[in-house]
């Protein structure tokens, strides 16, 4: 094996040093991996993001419930304007997609790449169905005169479901990244962190929707 000649010029930053176009091997990790008991899905740092994200949604939902106390009648009337069957269908669609993601993790771990790819593709189609139904729901709400500025209930409805839809879009992009990894047959050992991280993120998206559906569609309509 021949090593590329690198002309080291200490006056220039490392990235301007002249090498023969060959990437140098990364130096060994500076932080030794800590031995741990038990297994954290993805990695510990990911859970800072997931818990932080859920805390933010929880805060918005708490303020929503707080505002509802001052005007329960208007909140009830407004909640009845939402199309509950669509919300329920979307809940089922996301729960199904979460199940598909679990199966995909199992298939990837077992090295069954084509099967894992099909399962991830099915989860992506669930996300597409969710987004389609959501778009129809927005369309019917706006065409019957309910916009984000028509009352506190609809402000929260659009903000919560909009932020959630953004998470669905980001999650779909992540599922497609995973799909690409499966296409290249990336082994489980090399991709466990990423695959489990994406799966955990997707479960969070599902869990957030269950909370939003329960509080905005069902509890408010009581």
């Amino acid at each position, binding site marked *: 094996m021949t090593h590329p000649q690198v002309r080291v010029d200490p006056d220039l*930053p*490392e*990235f301007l040093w002249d*090498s023969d176009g060959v*990437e*140098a091997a*990364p*130096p*060994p*990790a*500076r*932080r030794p991996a800590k031995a741990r008991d038990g297994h954290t899905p993805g*990695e*510990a*740092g*990911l859970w*800072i*993001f997931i818990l*932080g*994200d859920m805390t*933010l949604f929880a*805060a*918005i939902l708490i*303020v929503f419930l707080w505002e509802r106390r001052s005007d329960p009648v208007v909140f009830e009337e407004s909640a009845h304007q939402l199309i509950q069957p669509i919300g329920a269908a979307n809940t089922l669609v996301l729960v199904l997609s979460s199940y598909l993601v679990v199966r995909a993790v199992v298939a990837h771990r077992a090295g069954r790449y084509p099967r894992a790819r099909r399962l991830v593709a099915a989860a992506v189609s669930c996300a597409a169905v969710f987004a389609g139904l959501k778009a129809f729901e927005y369309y019917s709400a706006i065409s019957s005169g309910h916009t*984000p*500025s028509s009352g*506190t209930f609809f*402000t929260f409805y659009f*903000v919560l479901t909009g*932020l959630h839809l*953004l998470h669905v879009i980001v999650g779909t992009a992540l599922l497609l990244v995973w799909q690409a990894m499966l296409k290249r047959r990336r082994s489980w050992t090399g991709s466990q962190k990423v695959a489990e991280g994406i799966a955990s993120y997707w479960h969070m998206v599902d869990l957030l929707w269950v909370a939003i559906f329960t509080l905005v569609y069902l509890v408010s309509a009581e």
Partner: protein
Amino acid sequence: MLTNRILVLCAWAGPATVVVAMIGWLIAGVLPVPLGSESSVEAVVSFYSHDTRVIAGLVISTIGVSLVFPLIAVIAVFMVRMEGRTPILAFLQLITGAATGVCLLLPLLLMTTIAFRPDRSPELTMTLNDIAWLLFITPIAPFIIQNVAIGVAILNDKRQTLPRWVGYVNFWIAFSFIPDPLAFFFHSGPFAWRGIFIFWLALTTYSVFLVVMGLTLRKAIRESADLDVSAVAAAAA
């Protein structure tokens, strides 16, 4: 080493940004309760009528906010180390970080200008105050891009120059800024510019960004200095 001392100083500029800017805002009266979009004309005019105190506080806060620039520089140095030959994310972080700093400075200078002639027509003061606050709160895209660039660079870095959780914290901070443009749509409530999900959330997570980046970089600088020392010792032996 002098370079290391400068790096440490730049890292401490992160937490210092929070402290100095907060002191300035407390003197000016921007904190603890800022003007809101629902504030009356009288309240807005009376805020700027304490012109000397308001101007002094705002000038201190512009100095405070500018301390973010050394932090951006030291983040860039470490991102160059992470990325190696093609540090595109480091450059992206530099550009968007500089833009964010300017977006924070300009509204504060505008507020100082409002306090410069407090006896003008109240309607003008009201309009200028709206411009200042909406400019302050809503231009979030540069900062979100900066956070994502830092996060991606940290997670792609095999050497783990910075701990990986810092990358995830950056993604979370980026997410917390997304509601801010709602300040254009609401004049009161939690999504107006003074609401808890706009001003207060952004203030909290921006402070988290400045403190976390400052402290983790300071630790990384110390660790790399230790490595340099041991490398010299090994070479001498």
